[in-house]
C-alpha cells in the first residue's frame, strides 16, 4: 500500500506482530481487534493513555512517542510498524529497516483517515467499516438523547490557572463534538488541530459556552483541586457555564489528545454522562 508519505510499503498479508508507535495507531489497532506487540507511552504520560489502559495494560512500551527505542523495537521482532504522526524522515527510514512501516497520518489529518489507513495496512477493512457504522449509530442516538441541548455551544478547554487554552476547531475532541452537531463558541472557531496559546484571564469569556468541558491533566495529589481553585477566581465564577452549573471536569489527556476511534467513543461517553438528563 501507499502511506501518507507517498512511500510504497509491502505490508504482510496477515500481520501478527504489529507495533503501534502513536496513541492513535494503538487506538486503531485495539478497535480493530488486534493485540499490539508493542507501543509508546502517550503524549505527556508515562504509560498508555488512561482510556486505553484496560485493553492495553500489558502491551510492552518501547519508549516515548517520537523517541522509540530502536533496540527494544528490534527485540520485539515486529512484522509491521504503524508510525502515524512521525515527522522525522530519518527515524522512519531506520524503522523501515526493522520492519515494513506505514505512516498512517500526518499531524493535521483527522482520526478517520488515520483509522482507514491503519485498517488497510492490517487488512481489516471490514471491521473498520463495521466500527464506523457503530460510531455513526452511537452519534445519532446520543444526538437524539441530548434533545433540547442539541443547539448548545460546547467549549473545550485545557485548564491552566495562569492561562487556560482552548482546543482549536479541528482538534480531535472538536471533531467529535462536530459529529454530534454541537457548535463551538464563536471565539473558538480558529482552524488548527492543537490548542490555543495561554489566554489572558481578562479574556476568560472566550472559554465560556453553554457547556464547558474542562480538561485537567491529573487527578491525584492536590492537582485534583484544580477546579476547586478555579472556582475561587472571580473571573471564572462569572462565566455563564459556571453560574449554570454546566462545567464538566474531564480527563485532559483524552480530550486534548490525538485520539482515535476508541477515544472518540470515550468522548461521546463523557458527553452522555454530562449532557443527557437522567
Amino acid at each position, binding site marked *: 500500500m501507499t502511506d501518507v508519505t507517498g512511500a510504497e510499503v509491502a505490508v504482510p498479508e496477515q500481520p501478527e506482530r504489529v507495533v503501534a508507535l502513536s496513541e492513535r495507531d494503538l487506538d486503531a489497532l485495539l478497535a480493530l481487534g488486534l493485540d499490539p506487540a508493542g507501543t509508546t507511552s502517550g503524549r505527556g504520560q508515562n504509560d498508555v493513555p488512561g482510556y486505553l489502559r484496560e485493553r492495553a495494560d500489558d502491551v510492552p512500551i518501547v519508549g516515548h512517542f517520537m523517541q522509540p527505542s530502536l533496540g527494544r523495537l528490534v527485540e520485539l521482532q515486529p512484522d509491521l510498524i504503524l508510525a502515524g504522526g512521525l515527522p522525522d524522515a530519518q527515524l522512519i527510514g531506520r524503522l523501515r529497516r526493522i520492519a515494513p512501516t506505514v505512516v498512517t497520518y500526518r499531524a493535521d489529518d483527522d482520526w478517520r483517515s488515520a483509522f482507514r489507513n491503519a485498517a488497510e495496512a492490517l487488512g481489516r477493512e471490514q471491521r473498520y467499516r463495521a466500527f464506523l457504522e457503530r460510531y455513526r449509530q452511537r452519534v445519532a442516538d446520543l444526538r437524539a438523547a441530548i434533545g433540547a441541548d442539541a443547539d448548545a455551544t460546547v467549549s473545550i478547554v485545557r485548564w491552566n*490557572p*495562569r492561562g487556560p487554552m482552548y482546543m482549536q476547531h479541528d482538534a480531535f475532541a472538536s471533531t467529535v463534538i462536530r459529529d454530534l452537531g454541537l457548535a463551538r463558541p464563536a471565539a473558538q472557531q480558529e482552524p488548527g488541530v492543537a490548542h490555543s496559546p495561554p489566554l489572558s*484571564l*481578562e479574556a476568560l469569556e472566550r472559554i465560556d459556552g453553554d457547556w464547558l468541558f474542562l480538561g485537567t491533566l*491529573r487527578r491525584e495529589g*492536590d*492537582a485534583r*483541586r484544580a477546579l476547586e481553585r478555579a472556582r475561587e477566581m472571580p473571573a471564572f465564577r462569572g462565566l455563564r457555564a459556571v453560574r449554570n452549573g454546566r462545567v464538566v471536569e474531564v480527563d485532559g489527556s483524552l480530550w486534548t489528545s490525538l485520539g482515535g476511534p476508541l477515544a472518540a467513543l470515550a468522548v461521546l461517553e463523557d458527553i452522555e454522562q454530562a449532557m443527557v438528563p437522567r
Partner: protein
Amino acid sequence: MTAPRHEGRSARLLAGALVALVLPALVVLSLVTGAGEPGPVGSLRYLLSAGSVPDAATADTVIRTLRLPRTAAAVVVGIALGVAGCLLQALTRNPLAETGILGINAGAALAVVLGITYAGAGTGAAYLVWAFAGALAGSALVLLLANAGAATPLRLVLAGIALGSTFSGLTAAVLLGNQASYDQYRFWVLGTLSGVDTGALWFIMPAVAASVALALLVTRPLSALLLGDDAARALGHHPRVIRAWVALAATLAAGSAVALAGPIAFLGLLAPHAARAVAGPRLGVQCVLSGVVGAAVLLGADIVARVVVPPFEVPASVLVALLGAPVMIWVVRSNRLLRLTTSGGGP
C-alpha cells in the same frame, strides 16, 4: 577637578528622579492595560472615581482581582530580583553573577519537579511552597559547600555552578522518566505573572521585606568586603559573617521571586548593571536603585506581555530577555560598566 564631579552627581540625581517617576507611571499603566474590558479610558475612570462607574462589577473583577495582584507581584518580584542581583554581584565580586548563581533557581526547579512527580503538587500554592523550600535548600547547600574550608568569592561561584548543574541534571533525569510531570513543569518554568494569587503574594511579602531590610543593613560592611578580605578585617569586619548575612538576604529575595513567578532569568543581571551606571559608587544606593530598576523592567515587560498578542499571553520571562537586552547593550556601549572592585572608592 571638582566641576565634572558635580556634573556627574546632578546627572545621577536626574537619572534617579526619572527612574523613581517611571515606576509609578508604569503602575498606573499596568492597572489600565489588559486584554479585556474595561479599556484604558474606562479603567482610568474607574480608578479616579474610586469604583463608582456604571459597569463597576466587571471593572472591579478585572482591575481588583486580576490587574492589581499581577502589578503588585511584578513590583515585588522585580525589587527582589534587582536587590538580590546587586547583593550577589558584590558578594561574589563577579559582574556576571545573577540570581541563578547560588543554586537558587535550579534548587527551586528541582523541588517543584519532585513535588509534581512524587507529591502530586498541582496548584499554584503547592508550587509556591515547593519552589521556596527548594530555593532555600539549594542555596544552603551551596553555602555549606563553599564554606567548607577558606570561603572566597570564587569558591562560592564555583560551588554555585557545580550544584546548580547537579540540580538541573537531577531535574532533567526526573522529567525524562515522567512525561506527565514534564507537561506540568513546562508551564511553571516559563515565569509569568498572569494569574498570580493574592494569597501567595501575602505569603511572600514578609520574606521580601525582610531581605530588603537585611540588604540595607549589610551594604556598608559589604562595601568594605569589596576592598578585599584583609582590608575588611582591618576595618573591623568579619568577612565570613558578612557573607552569610548577604547570602541569606539574597536567597530570601531570589527564592521569593522564583516561588511567586517562576524563574525569570536575566533581570538579576541587568538591574544591578543599569543601577550602577547611574547610581555611582555607593553600594547601598546601587542596591536600592537596582530594586527599582528591576521592578520597572519587570512591570514594563508584564504590560507588554498582555498587549503583544491579545487575548493571549506571552510569559513575562520571555519579554524580560527581549526588552532587557537593549538596556544591557546600552550599559555596555556607554562604557558605564563600573568595575565592582573599585566601587569602594580608589582601586
